[in-house]
């Protein structure tokens, strides 16, 4: 069985702070991590490999050369092969252009039975690349997977909904997006760490010329969407502080509630 896992290196947005004076993001010292949902996607692929050692797990990422680190981490967890799509032409891609580029790489690799993505990446929170990639490859998709059961050549997926879940059935090949309910990602292991560090070039890097792609269909140039402007979500109001003891503050607040008709006079 051939499995592809798409992973993205993202800034740890939990560590980003905004400078409230200048309204800019403080990205200095913010670590880069593997997008959390993607680790759940990878973990599922690796459990299938645990069950059947003939399973081949490829991890694929598009990003700057620095993203090699993320892919190496995946190899150290047990993935078999890692490919990084990196080229200046790919920069500034929106989700459409990202999916288009990833799809070209998938076509160059062997056919996959299963493609796994994270549900969403924490930098953009769009949850779009998975479904867009599935459409590009003309295979079905199941998003929001909270559990997956693979049998023969088909899957049964519990697809998380707002008020429960649906059990969805489909044949392979299919693209599934993973939620954090799916499993508990493993750590890197010594055996694979050693193997990866003995390899000359554990991560293959492909650029535009390695892929069958129209240069006008990648990166910023190929992106249908554009960022027109970005700004800090400025604090809106002028706060009025009450002072005094807890009782005094409470009394003042209740007075204001009355003025605002929030409670009966």
């Amino acid at each position: 069985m051939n499995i592809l896992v798409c992973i993205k290196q993202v800034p740890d947005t939990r560590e980003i702070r905004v400078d409230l004076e200048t309204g800019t993001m403080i990205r200095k010292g913010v670590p880069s991590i593997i997008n959390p949902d993607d680790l759940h996607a990878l973990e599922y692929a690796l459990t299938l490999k645990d069950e059947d050692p003939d399973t081949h797990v490829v991890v694929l990422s598009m990003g700057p050369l620095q993203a090699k680190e993320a892919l190496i981490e995946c190899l150290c967890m047990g993935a078999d092969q890692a490919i990084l799509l990196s080229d200046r032409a790919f920069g500034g891609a929106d989700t459409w252009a990202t999916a288009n580029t990833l799809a070209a790489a998938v076509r160059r690799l062997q056919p996959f039975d299963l493609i796994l993505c994270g549900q969403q990446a924490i930098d953009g929170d769009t949850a779009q690349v998975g479904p867009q990639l599935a459409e590009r490859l003309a295979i079905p998709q199941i998003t929001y997977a909270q559990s997956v059961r693979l049998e023969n050549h088909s899957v049964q997926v519990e697809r998380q909904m707002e008020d429960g879940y649906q059990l969805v059935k489909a044949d392979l090949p299919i693209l599934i997006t993973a939620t954090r309910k799916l499993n508990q990602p493993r750590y890197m292991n010594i055996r694979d760490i050693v193997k990866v560090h003995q390899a000359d070039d554990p991560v293959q890097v492909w650029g535009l010329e390695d892929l069958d792609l129209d240069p006008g269909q990648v990166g910023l140039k190929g992106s249908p969407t554009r960022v027109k402007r970005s700004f800090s979500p400025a604090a809106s109001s002028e706060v009025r502080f009450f002072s005094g003891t807890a009782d005094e503050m409470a009394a003042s607040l209740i007075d204001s509630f009355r003025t605002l008709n929030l409670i009966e006079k």
Partner: protein
Amino acid sequence: MNHSNNAVWVFAEQRDGEFLPVVYEILTEARGIAEKLNTNLCAVAFGQGVTGKLDQLAAFGAQTILCTDAPEFSTYTTGVYTRQLAELIHQYSPAVLFIGATHNGRDLGPRLASRLDTGLTADCTSLDVDADTGNLLMTRPAFGGNLMATIISPNRHPQMATVRPGVFKAMPLPGAPAAAVVQATSQVQSGDMLTEIVHVVKEKSQEEDITRARIIVAGGRGLGNATGFDLLQELADCLGGTVAASRAAVDAGWINNARQVGQTGKTVQPELYIACGISGAIQHLAGMNKARTIVAINKDKDAPIFKAAHYGLVGDLFQVVPALVKQLKSQEKGTKS
């Protein structure tokens, strides 16, 4: 057909035959967009037996309704809905398409955008039209809410955006005329039915829907433990409100995640939001900064929540909240006697 060409479309998602509240919220907001673009507002409804329910869409401003009423549309599946919507878009070429950012909407939107080779902006929190270019201006949070970005999709059509539930307020259009209903036949092919829903499990939630609450008392890590929420519940009861939480409190397991407010929780717009022991991280603010009146109770006078608040109480919530409860209760007794 002029009633649909270049129109603003709203995908009207239904579940079990009922349109979701987010549909009415988007219709309300889309009225202004259609007006600025000087075009028609059209709702697109798929389902089985939905034809009888279309009046509700008109009541919120849909002037035209494109409806496909057939068994294969009873429950959302990716292939079937994508096919039908893509075919209708080819036929009528709308200028704009809005989809609710529900789990189904976030499954459908990107699949469709990819098929149509157009852009899609996820989870918009405000929408406008550029008066010079006529481009749709789609504003959304990025980097975990640390930054807001206004996105355009100038060269491809339709311009597509998803909008999260609770971001806009649904308001019926007074005196809305009946809509022109166009029945569209199913264009679904057998190859579109590649996934099959075996069954649906509804996990009955005891939780109230915080997005509909008029008054919310929310608690964060400052509560210290789950019993802290009992105190907030008391205050909420005095005010006729409901209890909500920050992600830190949810992650700590003190309260159900259905009550989380923020970027990865729910967006709320109550009349009154009282934040107790919440620092006011940008991801939290993203979910509540549109509340009419915001009160912050926090012992740290520099907590960012005070920048978003209208009223600030610097102090220990374990003293302030009981004082509020005591005074509200005694007044209640006072007015009754």
